[in-house]
């Protein structure tokens, strides 16, 4: 069973969490009018067979959004952090500004 170490609640089964998709894509700014940029953000995926940076929400625990780095070929989790911490760590922030 895939298990995820929640930074607040400890190690839990993945069924307590909800997968939230690719966390590696910067969201276009709200004033970006280029539909191509939004199409890419919403619909196109790298979908790697290997390390993947992704969102999970601990819906049956602390309800925090997490960023998990996981190998999709083995399901081994390499790193878990709160999404808010991940955002602070990214110099540009999620909007790319």
């Amino acid at each position, binding site marked *: *069973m*895939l298990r995820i170490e929640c930074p607040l609640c400890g190690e839990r*089964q*993945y*069924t307590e969490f*909800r*997968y939230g*998709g*690719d966390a590696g894509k910067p969201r276009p700014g709200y004033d970006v009018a280029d*539909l*191509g940029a939004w*199409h*890419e953000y*919403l*619909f*196109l*995926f*790298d*979908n*790697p*067979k290997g390390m*993947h940076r*992704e969102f*999970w929400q601990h819906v049956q625990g602390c309800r925090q959004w997490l960023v998990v780095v996981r190998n*999709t*070929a*083995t*399901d081994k989790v390499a790193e878990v952090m709160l999404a808010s911490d991940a955002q602070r760590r990214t110099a540009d922030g999620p909007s790319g500004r």
Partner: protein
Amino acid sequence: MARYSLSRLVRHAVTDRPWPRAWRDAQPRNRYDVVIIGGGGHGLATAYYLAANHGIDRVAVVERAHIGSGNVGRNTTLVRSNYMMSGNTQFFEFSLQLWEGLSQELNFNVMLSQRGQIVLAHSPAQMDVLARRGNTMRLNGIEAELLDRGEVRRLLPYLDYSTAARFPIWGGLLQRRAGTVRHDAVAWGYARAADSLGVDIIEGCEVTGFLRDESGVHGVATTRGRILADRIAIAVAGHSSQVAAMAALRLPVESHLLQAFVTEPVKPFVDHVISFGAELFYISQSDKGGLVFGGHIDGYNSFTQRGQFAKAQSVAECAVAMIPGMSRLKLLRHWAGIQDMTPDGAPFICRTPVRNLYLDGGWCYQGFKATPAAGWCLADTIAHNAEHPLVRCYSLDRFERGADDLDEYGHGHWPYRH
């Protein structure tokens, strides 16, 4: 290739000679008109229809492992055309019509069994939804019968009709022409028929890159050398993103696991294909007696090709809620296939932004039943370098254009549908 027939069967029974290989062990040539990446049902069907319908016989199917080792042998073998959204309805009905003639067409028994599929309704509102779906089918010339509780009970007496049933049965929608097919025979039948028309089926040959220039792709690099081709098609199911990435293409696809389950064999009692109405759950009984069933995807992207136990548990709960007697059966096997999920749950059969490169992918639960029509339409698309009318809705740029609502569930976009 000698045709299979009753007289040939008798001859082989009285002589001691072994049956010959059904297709050649082809070695890669330097150049082909069309190279198809992926020796699954879709790739082999495409090769067959390129040769049979369009006279294009300089075709190679290159397969990393052995043919039929992917999702064509991992599905729950169901075929049906009870869709509601325009585009899907016509495409899957065409596929079912091709299934109906396939054993004769290929001279290979694919063991189509049109035992009928019943989708259950567990509330009056759900009956309305099924009535609408049935009416849509009938408007498209596909027979559909709305059944009330009594009629369902006559056909499926072993469901839970007690007052304690968690999901009471109000009725169902029956498509009599739906059923099951022996899935391995589909890969073998198409392979043998394509081979007899001159198609090279090259196993143990993994594509490692595309030969590209500014005008598009003109060949593939493989573990067995370079192969030049005028046109190249990708038909690799769960690894569409990986192969497309070699041509610098990003797809609207995430790869997810779908599990299938088989119980120990028992005497025949499930005579139909049944779909639960309270959850995504579908079941049929194989000729060997095992109950074959499946449910939703595991719920997060993965290439591990093995399922999580939590899904086995929730699918088993569906089984017992619907057929209480199943609680006494042992689960014999379960496995997972990697399938590419798309934002609207519909596939791609199309040209791509890369010249000479075609895509068949994004099949979301429904790749197996689509096999003949996908092969037919992809072959037509390659031959004419323009999408077959039935698959114009399955284009790669439909999200960008905001076109063609194909979403059967009306959920709206979610990156890991459904």
